[in-house]
């Protein structure tokens, strides 16, 4: 098991005793119950769990889309758990590259314009923006489709555009939410290979999934259940513990 304590400093991500409580219809729902772990630069970590385990809430907190009810979240040396809405917007823009299950591309914009978007919010000049977006699309081998709109692209191509958009701002980490969930197995495999390449290139990847098979491909996996960490170890071990060797594809 990895060291989950807050002691290991110099880490890219350090969450300490994070809780997140929602109030739904007068009832208190504790989605995260004191979660502590750290992720170092260059790691590829899967956060795995069943529906209702708290993994989506964990992803929202890690992605600075939501703030914890209590506990501390340090991202790249900054305490982001108590930041204002606008400060979090800046953090999302600079530190995080999102990859969503449903791609979340703007349907009326071209692939190139979609990839440029994070740089627009950084106030970058149009020419430089375009160059960088082209370079990012080149990394995912999609330069030949850059003037196409999302509805003219296949599922795998759309996800690659989304990955290019996540890469373009050179964030501290890539945060992927069920990145292969909407893809057939062959295309999903293509995307996982792309992640492997990105990992080898030194990117920090956090992947939220319910698929043990996918978690098994990651060097490290954290398993959540009922809002708490129940396992933190190598992807293969955690996946096998969840689904057995056959199902986990190991």
């Amino acid at each position: 098991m990895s060291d989950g304590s807050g002691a290991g400093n110099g880490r890219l991500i350090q969450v300490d005793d994070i809780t997140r409580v929602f109030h739904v219809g007068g009832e208190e729902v504790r989605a995260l119950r004191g979660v502590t772990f750290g992720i170092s630069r260059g790691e590829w970590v899967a956060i795995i769990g069943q529906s209702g385990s708290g993994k989506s809430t964990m992803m929202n907190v890690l992605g600075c889309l939501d703030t914890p009810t209590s506990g501390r979240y340090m991202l790249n040396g900054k305490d982001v758990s108590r930041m204002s809405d606008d400060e979090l917007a800046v953090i999302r823009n600079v530190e995080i590259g999102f990859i969503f299950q449903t791609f979340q591309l703007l349907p009326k914009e071209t692939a190139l314009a979609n990839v440029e978007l994070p740089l627009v919010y950084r106030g970058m000049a149009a020419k430089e923006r375009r160059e960088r977006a082209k370079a990012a699309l080149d990394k995912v081998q999609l330069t030949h489709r850059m003037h196409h709109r999302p509805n003219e692209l296949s599922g795998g191509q759309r996800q690659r555009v989304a990955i290019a958009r996540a890469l373009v701002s050179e964030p501290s980490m890539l945060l992927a939410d069920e990145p292969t969930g909407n893809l057939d197995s062959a295309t999903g495999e293509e995307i996982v290979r792309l992640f492997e390449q990105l990992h080898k290139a030194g990117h920090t990847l956090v992947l939220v999934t319910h698929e043990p098979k996918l978690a098994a491909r990651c060097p490290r996996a954290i398993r959540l259940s009922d809002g708490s960490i129940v396992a933190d170890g190598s992807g293969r071990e955690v996946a096998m513990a969840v689904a057995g060797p056959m199902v986990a594809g190991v």
Partner: protein
Amino acid sequence: MKSVTSLRVDVLEGARIALFSLRANRLRTVLTTLGIGIGVATLLAIVGIIQGLNTSFHKQLASFGANTLYVSKFPWMIKGDWWKYRNRKNFTLEQLPRLRAMAPFITALSPSVSRLSDVSYGGEQMSSVRIQGVNHEYLSIAGFDITGGRFITEADEEVTRPVAVIGADVAERMFPGISPVGRTIRVDNRSFQVVGTLSRKGKVVNESMDLLVLIPFKTFYSNFGKGRPFEIAMAVADASQVRMAEDQLIGILRRLRATEPGQPDDFNINKPEAMAQTYAQLTGALYGVAVGVGLITLLVGGIGIMNIMLVSVRERTREIGVRRALGARKRTIVVQFLMEAASVSAVGGLLGTTVGLGTAKVVSLITPLAADVQTTTVLGGVFFAALVGLLFGIWPAARAANLDPVEALRYE
């Protein structure tokens, strides 16, 4: 790298997205634009026509002469008890030389008395023609020119000659194509020889200033009765002296009429300018109602914009979520939607301005109403439209910006 988007970037990006979105929803844009456009058009057409009326009124009023005063026991616009004015002492002709001696700033002075009469020449007859008794100085006070013959002379007055100087309407109607000078007209069955014709002055509040016959004052008294109260028309050297003249005249007239100290003035000093004030009071209410109607139309257009913007926010909830996730701040989203609302309104404003000006122009061409649209009105119209868009866009824009990014990304 620091992510600090300036307001300039927000506005530029907002404008780009706004235009993109407006182009993408053409029919909706056109319909929304129409709403605000109709509002601006209504407002501008109304304001244009009213401004036109005002301008032409003031222009006509100026033809009275800015340096003239008219002293009478009656005010031009009677408010309240007519009998109070009726019971005031009349001015007498004997007072005129004394007035002139006491008020050296008066450059021309004439008594003036009038009635409406039938005028005929040959088979042609005109009714309700103003017959006015004046002296030889009246020409320079009233601002007429002589277009043919001569004006009334001192000699005409002394011997109460039955001569007349006729206005342009009378001349054209009675003597088409021939010179009236030397011919004899009948005024209420009395004969007057035409000795001159007057230049055209036009209309004031739709009443012709040229439907008149000027005759010597004494001739008027001897023909139409001596008892009639008259008005004293006077001119001062130039318009800048009018106020000073007015102040001095009050004292002079009180002495002349032996008004007791402590008693209110028993006369009125009438000026074209005062008529303008009364006119402004009369039209002010109309103006207010008309502008109110235009504003209500604009309000309806604004509500249309708000409605469409709320629909737009709902439709683009996921887009807002994506933008927020990628680093758009609340302000960026607010600016984006405000730009969209303001763009629709500004386009509507331009459209409305064109239609409004066109309507005012057409109205001025096919009706006697004059239209006059000033630059400030046009700018005001476009600015106001954009302002309406901004105001009615605030709520939808705030709703968009306050969406929870997590919820927005999940929105189906």
